[in-house]
């Protein structure tokens, strides 16, 4: 099963990259985009058919490695694999 982990800087942390991107968009004429925050996206292929187990495992590795809890928070999405047709 596939787990998707979205890691973003906590709201209290200044994001210079996001700010730079927002300013670039403004200068490109997209005045309607007031703020941009840049984050990271991970796709994990987990050996499990249980969504709960997959989600728990993804959260565990996010806590241990993928996100730095001092400055980042994360959320997990689990994608069900399309059911294979049984003979």
């Amino acid at each position, binding site marked *: 099963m596939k787990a998707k982990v979205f890691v973003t800087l906590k709201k*209290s*942390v*200044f994001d*210079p*990259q996001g700010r*730079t991107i927002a300013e670039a968009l403004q200068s490109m004429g997209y005045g309607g985009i007031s703020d941009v925050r840049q984050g990271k996206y991970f796709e994990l292929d987990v050996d499990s058919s249980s969504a709960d187990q997959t989600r728990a495992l993804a959260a565990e590795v996010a806590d241990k*490695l*993928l996100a*730095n809890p*001092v*400055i980042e928070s994360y959320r997990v999405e689990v994608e069900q694999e399309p059911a294979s047709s049984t003979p």
Partner: protein
Amino acid sequence: MRFAIVVFPGSNCDHDAYHAAKHVLGQDADFIWHKEASLKGADAVVLPGGFSHGDYLRTGAVARFSPVMRAVAEFARAGGPVLGICNGFQILLETGLLPGAMLRNRDLKFHCEHVHVRVEQTVTPFTMQAARGQVLRLPIAHGEGNYYAEPDVLQTLESEGRVVFRYCSPDGAIVEAANPNGSAGNIAGICNDARNVVGLMPHPERACEAVLGSADGLVLFESVLASVRERGTLRTPDAGAVILTRS
């Protein structure tokens, strides 16, 4: 005394640290590969600068899982002096041996230049021969030196006197213009609560000989030598942890 200089894949200031310890200070030094479990009876450990594991994921994020870090953590817990320089500081942060985290430099530029830092705390093995308020001219070379910690952690660091170095002007003024990366409170280096683990972004090992532009970094190495001589080696837990009393 004996220095252990840990080498991770991608470390590139290990030889400078070795040179400073062995050829300038005249002490013994060993390179310790990150997969090794022993620090070979070192009296002090240096985590050098560089780009361990290519800075993949986050700077220092992968290095902290190396086998050697278990030995480094034990050594630190027993009171042994540990110096994290630049990437080494980042690794100490990721390991949790020091609090806080590093963000990208505020202006998004990699800064490779000489800066000035003021010694804020002399009660550590690495600054005991410096004077409070002493200004050191040291080179920096980093893209992620913007020190961040939550407000209560920053408050604790300040109130406990655990900010060891602060970016300053050549005459020692703590001003924004002297801060190359936007770090909170102009923090360039901090220590743990037991004061034996120090991390700093500037490179003292690259400022130990005048021919390199500054010899101001030598005082960190002279200090730890004096500290080890004063307290003896830390081979046994009872040898007296390097806990210096606050004056």
